[in-house]
């Protein structure tokens, strides 16, 4: 077992206690007597899982809920029944019931009735992608209408605590080692999907429990995508979006490497995107509007004559969170929020340029008073696979 990530780690326990205390503080402010933190098990890194953020348990089943009151020990309901042993080890809360998915609603009703919570003022946080069937089922399960508590977790989870950062930094180290392994092992003649497979399982061997990975190559990429049966060859530009997870904390690096020596044109265009990334990082300080940082990223690209390429379909976004906790911030002009100290996300001016194709250039960063600092030991460069 990786001894750095045992459930009994005092830092882990301390941080989860702080999360519970902060949640209860918000419950008091918002007049909530029973908060249901729900997770649907999809683990979409654009979807949040409030149940995981509160309990430390990453579920397998389609339903999980943490019932939090203002004073009693929180109660966890997980699915499926046979996963109770793992849940008991991983959840920071001891009061736990395991049931099969079809029994989730009845189990929840029983827990609420047994604890006399039927008349409590309730709210549910189900994450951004809570399926309609469960979203519309809460009234029947809880016995009354419930408020929406998603914002509580979006805001509380945004600044990372020490445990989150420890896991995040471990995932960053895995991502960086993985990329070095990729450069060392990818060779012309290999199938794209085989290169992806070897990277994927190398990350797993380093302790990554999951990985949002897109890896593909072309002489002139339009975007990055899932790996195909393309045979890699000299001159191909390999794109990698590598996002390992440790303890549910995903972290992403975006990298570009050329099979062979990069051309001067490729070096120049990568340098342009790198300068945009660094401009964005310098601008991203606590209190600065996210939209301003998008402008800071786009400015050098536009100044180089590529203004029309700073919008879709040539790019998607300038960055995003990738936690199961908070989805903020999305680094897009439509984002209304400001940067907050200690928030973590990937900043990536990944985009298509007509001269060279799509390049990836992105770093996981943390917001500090001095701007966004990279979590990597070395920022991405245009790689060469020789």
């Amino acid at each position, binding site marked *: *077992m*990786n001894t750095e*990530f045992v459930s009994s780690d005092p830092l882990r326990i301390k941080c989860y206690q702080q999360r519970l205390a902060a949640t209860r503080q918000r419950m008091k402010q918002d007049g909530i007597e029973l908060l249901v933190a729900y997770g649907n098990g*999809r683990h*979409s890194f654009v979807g949040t899982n409030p149940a995981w953020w509160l309990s430390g348990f*990453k579920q*397998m*089943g*389609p339903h999980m809920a943490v019932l939090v009151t203002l004073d009693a020990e929180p109660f966890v309901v997980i*699915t*499926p*029944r*046979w*996963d109770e*042993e*793992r849940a008991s*080890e991983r959840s920071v809360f001891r009061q736990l019931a395991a049931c*099969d*998915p079809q029994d989730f609603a009845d189990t929840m009703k029983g827990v609420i009735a047994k604890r006399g919570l039927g008349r409590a003022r309730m709210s549910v946080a189900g994450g951004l*992608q*809570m*399926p*309609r*069937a469960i*979203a*519309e089922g809460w009234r029947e399960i809880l016995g009354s209408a419930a408020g929406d508590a998603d914002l509580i977790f979006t805001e509380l989870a945004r600044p990372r605590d020490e445990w989150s950062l420890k896991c995040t930094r471990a995932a960053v180290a895995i991502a960086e080692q993985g990329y070095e392994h990729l450069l060392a092992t990818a060779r012309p003649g290999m199938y794209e*999907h*085989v290169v*992806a*497979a*070897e990277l*994927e*399982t190398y990350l*797993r*061997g380093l*302790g990554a*429990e*999951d*990985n*949002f*990975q*897109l890896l*593909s190559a072309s002489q002139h990429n*339009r*975007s990055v*995508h*899932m*790996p*195909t*049966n393309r045979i890699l060859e000299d001159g191909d530009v390999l794109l990698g979006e590598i*996002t390992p*997870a440790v303890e549910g904390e*995903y972290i992403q690096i975006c990298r570009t490497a050329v099979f062979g020596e990069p051309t001067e044109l490729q070096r120049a265009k990568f340098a342009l995107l790198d300068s945009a990334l660094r401009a964005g990082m310098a601008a991203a300080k606590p209190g600065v509007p996210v939209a301003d940082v998008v402008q800071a990223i786009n400015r050098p690209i536009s100044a180089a004559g590529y203004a029309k390429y700073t*919008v*879709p*379909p*040539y*790019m*998607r976004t300038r960055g995003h969170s990738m936690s199961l906790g908070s989805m903020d911030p999305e680094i897009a002009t439509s984002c209304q929020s400001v940067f907050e100290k200690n928030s973590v996300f990937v900043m990536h001016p990944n985009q*298509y340029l007509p001269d060279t194709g799509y390049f990836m250039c992105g770093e996981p960063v943390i917001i500090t008073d001095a701007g966004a600092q990279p979590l990597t030991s070395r920022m991405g460069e245009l790689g060469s696979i020789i």
Partner: protein
Amino acid sequence: MIAMTPVLSRGYTFWDRALFPRDEFEERTRFVQRNLKSDQLAGVIIWSQGYHTNGDLAFLSGNPTGGALLVTEEGEPSLFVSGGGREQYFLRMQTWIEDMHSTGGGLGKSIAESLKSRNVQGGTLGIVGFDLMSAAAKAELAASLSGFSLIDYEPRYQQSRTAKRPREVLAVKASLDIAREAVSAGEEVFANGGTNAQALVESERIARRLGARDFRALANLEGTQLRPFERITRSPIAPLILWVAVDHYGYWAEAVNRSACRSAASRAVNAMIACARPGTEAGAVARAGLAELPTSAQSGALSYGLGSGCGLSLEETPSIEPGSKAKLVEGALLTLRACVMEKADAAFCTAMVQVRAAETIRL
């Protein structure tokens, strides 16, 4: 079977036109269109979450990512994908659908415009995937299609594709070959002194190299029950029980290492195979399997699941459970399994079968 859902289906992605030529999808579409006519529907909207395409969408589109498909009584389907269009270049190489739209402005609005362009201006639309949408997405869809009556078409649609087409069986066999290679590789690592976690990781490596688009695995990594990979473990736990599921071209198959398939678990699966005939209730199949298990193991085996239909989803209808009245359909593919995780005896057996009139055969 329930396993940890990965953040993304991220393995080998390629439209194999030899296995699934365009005319295969055209024929499937005609089949659905005939049903629309007999069901008096103006069309059907099939929705799937983005990062894991569900079988309902993939059946007609072959698309490796999520989105929504609109099929009306006549004409070719239209595919609606999320985002601002960056992904379309790649997606157009993965699907036969030529009419592809990005839904940056809202799915419902895009579909409404498409219906208008097809001169479909009212009536009833079937929805597949209604329960999986977010409440906001459903509300936007309903508001945009306020001139139509929307009904849940999922049960009817799924029932209509229970019996598998010949090319679907070929695809599942290809997935099963990969799954078997994967568990064999894991078993070899374990036999050579590796840990259960190392065996699982090796099985994933082999599966992905051989063409798995998605991969799920459980093993007895720690404790007494099966678990997903979450960390490196240091000590082997014998006997190894390694269950993997592989999605290849969207079609799922599962396998367990040979040494785990023994004793009562093996007898239970054999009993279920012997019982499975067209017209037999799924509940009867489940009861036949349970009867072979020790009483103390039955509750656990039920929680792990005794099996289900299989194909474009890891778990399709019918579910093999004692109370099920659903009748087996000739041509359907089933995965049947029995998991015994008692302290004194750990065993897991699984079989992928096709229900046929004369006898149910193993793939």
